């Protein structure tokens, strides 16, 4: 019997039991739809993280303080506690003139989300939570993040510890709306609570361009001040050696290929600076390190999602097998008749396998459509927030279709084999 005939026979048989076919298919539809929807969410998340990391700038490297075991007590929650990087470290790195480094900028940070110390920008009666970044003029070039209106922090501001600030585009709009904020006096507050903390008055000198979210938080919500301006005036965010500690040294590479040699050179310098014999108290992370860490976290998530989808498919497959077994015993007489007029075992086997395959591949195709539909629904209603991206990839569409066909094959073969083994006369006798 030709494949087309087998296929047509299968269609006739499935159509004659339409409701049952549909219900059987439903298991596969749900399974494949969940594969498509879950992987779209996973791929979207991965893409989103990758974009955010790229959003930090290009060819970047970050040097940060690090301990394997965080210090206990107050030191662990105060920015000045724990291991530190210092201005002197940054100066030593700059003085070494390591080949491959384009430029560098140190920064201090107060009020990263999740920190014990919160920072607020206050203007008249308004108060907005922010992240306070103290940095140098080179920051613009290093992070590829420029001022759009007014001017950025200058060397002069740094030397004078001037009380001037540059606002992120988001926070400027939030507080000033359409009004030009340049020249306005704002209050910058830092402390563990609204009642307890310090407050200084700063003059706005500029507004940054729009940047969007990055792996280090929403960059448009930051407020930039000269590196020592805030720190020099606030005792509780300094450490034992005074106000010279920095949270992060941003390094821009001239060439990505120099990444490894630059890392080694910086590590050498810092070990000398810190008199380190055993364990480093700093870490050097390149953008690609951040990217691969984030991606591996996402991989884990994706494995989880796909496992859930596979479980759904197995359940659907068992449904297929169940129905096929019922169908074989119901159609024993038909099998007998077909054998009596000359159907071989292979013909019967093919007939039932193709039937299962038709159910699962049609179910798979409908499942893909349902999955894409669910994603469109999620996009339209912004389920998971505006930041959540969903990405339907051709790979997973193909995979979904392949998985549905394989499910049909795996769970259809046994009932089909049972059907093909029936003895013609036994089959004809059964009612």
């Amino acid at each position: 019997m030709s494949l087309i005939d087998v296929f047509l026979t299968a269609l006739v048989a499935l159509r004659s039991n339409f409701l049952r076919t549909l219900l059987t298919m439903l298991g596969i539809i749900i399974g494949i739809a969940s594969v498509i929807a879950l992987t779209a969410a996973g791929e979207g998340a991965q893409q989103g993280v990758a974009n955010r990391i790229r959003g930090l700038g290009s060819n970047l490297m970050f040097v940060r303080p690090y301990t394997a075991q965080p210090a206990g007590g107050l030191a662990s929650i105060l920015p000045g506690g724990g291991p530190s990087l210092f201005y002197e470290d940054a100066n030593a790195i700059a003085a070494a003139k390591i080949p491959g480094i384009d430029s560098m900028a140190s920064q201090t940070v107060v009020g990263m989300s999740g920190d014990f110390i919160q920072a607020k920008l206050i203007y008249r009666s308004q108060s907005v939570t922010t992240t306070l970044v103290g940095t140098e003029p080179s920051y613009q070039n290093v992070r590829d993040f420029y001022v759009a209106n007014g001017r950025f922090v200058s060397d002069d501001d740094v030397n004078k510890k001037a009380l001037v600030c540059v606002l992120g585009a988001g926070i400027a709009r939030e507080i000033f709306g359409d009004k030009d904020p340049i020249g306005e006096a704002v209050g910058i507050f830092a402390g563990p609570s609204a009642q307890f903390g310090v407050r200084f008055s700063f003059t706005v000198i500029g507004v940054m361009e729009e940047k969007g979210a990055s792996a280090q938080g929403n960059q448009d919500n930051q407020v930039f001040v000269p590196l020592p301006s805030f720190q020099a005036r606030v005792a509780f965010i300094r450490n034992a050696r005074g106000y010279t500690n920095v949270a992060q040294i941003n390094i821009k590479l001239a060439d990505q290929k120099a990444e490894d040699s630059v890392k080694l050179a910086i590590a050498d310098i810092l070990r000398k600076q810190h008199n380190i014999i055993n364990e480093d108290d700093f870490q050097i992370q390149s953008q690609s390190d951040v990217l691969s860490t984030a991606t591996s976290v996402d991989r884990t998530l994706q494995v989880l999602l796909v496992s859930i989808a596979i479980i759904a498919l197995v359940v659907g497959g068992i449904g297929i097998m169940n129905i096929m077994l019922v169908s074989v015993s119901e159609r024993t007489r038909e099998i007998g008749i077909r054998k009596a007029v000359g159907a071989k075992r292979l013909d019967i086997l093919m007939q039932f396998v193709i039937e299962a395959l038709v159910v699962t591949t049609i179910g798979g195709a409908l499942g893909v459509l349902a999955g894409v539909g669910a994603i469109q629904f999620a996009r339209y209603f912004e389920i998971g927030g505006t930041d959540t991206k969903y990405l339907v990839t051709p790979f997973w569409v193909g995979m979904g279709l392949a998985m549905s066909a394989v499910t049909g094959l795996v769970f259809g073969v046994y009932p089909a084999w049972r059907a093909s083994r029936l003895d013609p006369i036994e089959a004809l006798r059964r009612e």
Partner: protein
Amino acid sequence: MIRLRRISKLYKLGSQEVHALRGVDLEIRDGEFLAIMGPSGSGKSTLMNIVGCLDRPTDGIYQLDGINVSRLGDAQLATVRNRRLGFVFQSFNLLPRLNAIDQVAMPLAYRGVSNRKQLARAALQLVGLGSRMHHQPTQLSGGQQQRVAIARAIVGHPTIILADEPTGALDTKTSHDVMEIFRKLNEERGITIAFVTHEHDVAAYTRRIVSLRDGEIVADEPNVPVYAGQPLPPVAHPAPEAAGQAPPRSFETQA
């Protein structure tokens, strides 16, 4: 040419053994028209199923056109059923929800013939169902269903048609219609026809009557055909040797 040698069939029902056939010897030459008769439980259906390659004997040798059928595997047996034999059942055994043309064309699908519908139409016209081709079994009377089944049996131009009580579910008038079709197929196309019946007026159509009792042949006699209760002058029918010339089998592909 069908040749059975010491064919026996043993059924095991729990601890009990039932001998359905006890060493049957039977020879059916090409072009013969014969009835197998006997009371129920005499083994006549079992015999017919074995001849039709639907069942296998426990012991004995069955040769069909010189082929030792008892030695054939599943696929080869299926080919024999498909190409050499046509089988007609008492309960018609049509597939539900399939129209007459598709029913009749089905055996050809397993043979890989391409102009199936055309051949199926011809077979249906031959049994007088030219106007019922697109009807499903539920839309047909018993006699019409049996004629569809006969068309299905002859569509592949087999040399032998076997039937197990083909008129058992039909009234007298329709029974005679069906027997008339068998008679024509035998006389005009030289097809060997053997069937099981317990009705004497149906058996009367044939030229040979084999009687079975308790799994053994107790009588094997020639019969003067009587058609529809009317004795007719003996028809010059092909002698066994001449009947060896099979009708043209235009779409017979390689065996």
